[in-house]
């Protein structure tokens, strides 16, 4: 337990090493973002039979840098309608959680430099994974306030969508993380990695029976507002969602945060379900292998994100919400119960699983009843509407207060 760096208390050396770790992580993350943006553009253009960026640098690798410099030197615009304070605050509320969240990711094992052993991880707090959840819930503020503070319609719509979506899927996220915590017996990310180290079959993705991983993956994709859950910035509907009014460096910050979050979340997925930096080590430069494994696994997920973006159409908003609340959350809760029961005793697991099937049947029944009720109401309303249409038309709106009720009901159904 705990970083070997601090066994002697917070010494000067420990402090310096910690600072270096923070700076290195920061720089690595920035660099990674540059590469990942290029990677995404290149991969998706391949998938769409395009060439993609090919001017700046070899294979266009410097394209991101060029874009960044351009954004940096653009004029900083604040819309007249904007709430200036909030407008300025929002990008920081997005970028800071993105950085902090990465700090709990174990990138490699324990290394020793000049007599000081330390973990290749910015911090390993005992609450570990909860910090990630806390940061991802903080990031909602940035998105919400960006949209609201812009003082413009499309950003507001985008941010309302974003916050509802992020809150909804955070529940799934939390529940699936809990099932990992249950088998690990600790919240610390390093302990999670350690508990998966024995063999590939001990990776949580297999140990928990794949379902939590799939749920987590879907929830993460929605949290990141990545396709097919990118309704927040659906170009066809909302221009660019909550970042519509942003330009220059502020926009760059949002962009940066988005890709940083993508990297962090891929890394989290690797940590929680795929053994983190765990993998076969060969004799040469032993400390490097875990890092390579970690980066490799993370890259796989980054590739999958791009792949999804190229392959899947965007969901409708109600589909998104139904998926979250009616499918993912019940399944996640049920699976968590089974995992918990199995941790106690295998037979308990069977019993709970059986009970769960019953509960799911009840739930399905209740949902069917609800749907039937809604349909029945819709049918009744349709008939009301047709009978009421004769006298002046209830849709006339101001004809009578009662008609408002009709219109609303109809709209609701």
């Amino acid at each position: 337990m705990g970083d070997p760096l601090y066994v002697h208390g917070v010494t000067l050396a420990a402090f310096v090493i910690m600072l270096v770790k923070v700076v290195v992580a920061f720089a690595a993350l920035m660099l990674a973002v540059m590469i990942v943006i290029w990677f995404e553009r290149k991969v998706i253009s391949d998938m769409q039979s395009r060439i993609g960026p090919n001017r700046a640098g070899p294979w266009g690798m410097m394209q991101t840098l060029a874009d960044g410099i351009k954004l940096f030197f653009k004029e900083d615009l604040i819309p007249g309608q904007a709430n200036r304070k909030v407008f300025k605050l929002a990008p920081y509320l997005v970028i800071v959680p993105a950085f902090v969240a990465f700090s709990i990711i174990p990138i490699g094992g324990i290394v020793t430099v000049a007599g000081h052993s330390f973990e290749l991880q910015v911090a390993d707090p005992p609450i570990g994974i909860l910090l990630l959840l806390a940061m991802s819930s903080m990031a909602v503020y940035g998105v919400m306030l960006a949209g609201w503070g812009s003082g413009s319609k499309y950003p507001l719509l985008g941010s309302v969508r974003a916050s509802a979506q992020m809150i909804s899927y955070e529940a799934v996220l939390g529940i699936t993380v809990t099932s990992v915590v249950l088998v690990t017996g600790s919240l610390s990310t390093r302990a999670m990695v350690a508990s998966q180290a024995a063999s590939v079959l001990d990776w949580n993705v297999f140990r928990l029976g794949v379902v939590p991983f799939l749920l987590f993956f879907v929830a993460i994709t929605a949290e990141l507002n990545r396709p097919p859950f990118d309704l927040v910035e659906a170009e066809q509907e909302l221009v660019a969602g909550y970042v519509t009014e942003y330009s220059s460096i502020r926009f760059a910050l949002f962009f940066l945060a988005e890709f940083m979050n993508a990297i962090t979340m891929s890394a989290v997925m690797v940590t929680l379900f795929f053994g983190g930096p765990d993998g076969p080590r060969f004799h040469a430069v032993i400390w490097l292998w875990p890092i390579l494994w970690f980066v490799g696994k993370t890259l796989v997920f980054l590739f999958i994100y791009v792949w999804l973006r190229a392959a899947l159409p965007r969901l409708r908003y109600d589909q998104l919400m139904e998926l979250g609340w009616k499918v993912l959350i019940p399944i996640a809760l049920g699976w968590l119960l089974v995992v918990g029961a199995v941790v106690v005793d295998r037979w308990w697991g069977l019993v709970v699983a059986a009970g769960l099937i019953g509960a799911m049947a009840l739930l399905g029944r209740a949902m069917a009843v609800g749907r039937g009720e809604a349909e029945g109401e819709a049918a009744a309303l349709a008939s009301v509407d047709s009978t009421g249409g004769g006298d002046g038309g209830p849709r006339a709106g101001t004809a009578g207060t009662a008609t408002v009720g009709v219109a609303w009901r109809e709209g609701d159904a």
Partner: protein
Amino acid sequence: MPGIHGPLMAATYPDAIMFVVSAVLVLAGAIGVIASRNPVHSALSLVMTLFGVALIFLAQQADFIAAVQVIVYAGAIVVLFLFVVMFLGVDRLENLVVEPLRFQRVLALGLVALSVVGMLLLGVGAHWAIGAHSVTAPALNQPGGDVAALGKSVFTAYLLPFEATAALLIIAIIGAVVLTRRQPAAGEEGDAVEDTQGAGGGGAPAQERSNQADADGVDPDGAAGGQGSPREAPSRSSRGAPGETDSRAAEDGEPGTVRRAGEEVLR
């Protein structure tokens, strides 16, 4: 540093600094909540307060509670506040100059001053028994830290409160559903009444209108307009139908339009 013992002066420097910082955050946020004229700014100040509280929890080595504080309060509850504020468009500046009850502000200030003085007087020299036989300090040294200690107390000493929370949540959920469900119209469900409506066809407004049509022998909408006596007029007609229609429609119509707007936003 096994927690803070005694008054603040005896605390270690990092603890003292942390306390001061978080106290400033908490108080500044709290003042911001009530002093901001914009509800969104108030909500943001509330987040600041909650963050400060989380920091205080951290200083007490209650990491888990600190994280939960941020996730639940700052991350979910205030977001919902903001959501409602933004969604319903109540984020206009409040006009605080016009005071409906003039003496209220003075009274409030007086009461606050009184209670602050009272608290200070009561607190001076107060002996915090909890410092003497704290239950947290030994728990922290266990394997698993405060999370394990918390889990243990949830399943032992606080088992019943923990389970009672389930009842609390259920009643809260039922309450939320009751309050947000569309109100079924009179007679929509009742077996006996349903048949009496005849022409209504089920929907509430239609039922009201058809009843009025029967009653007055006029076109329904005309009746609503013509006979619509003021809602609270003492001379409401015997069955109270117009008054009721008015009030219900006013009540239902308002959220109705809002919700429609909301749906448009969401689609």
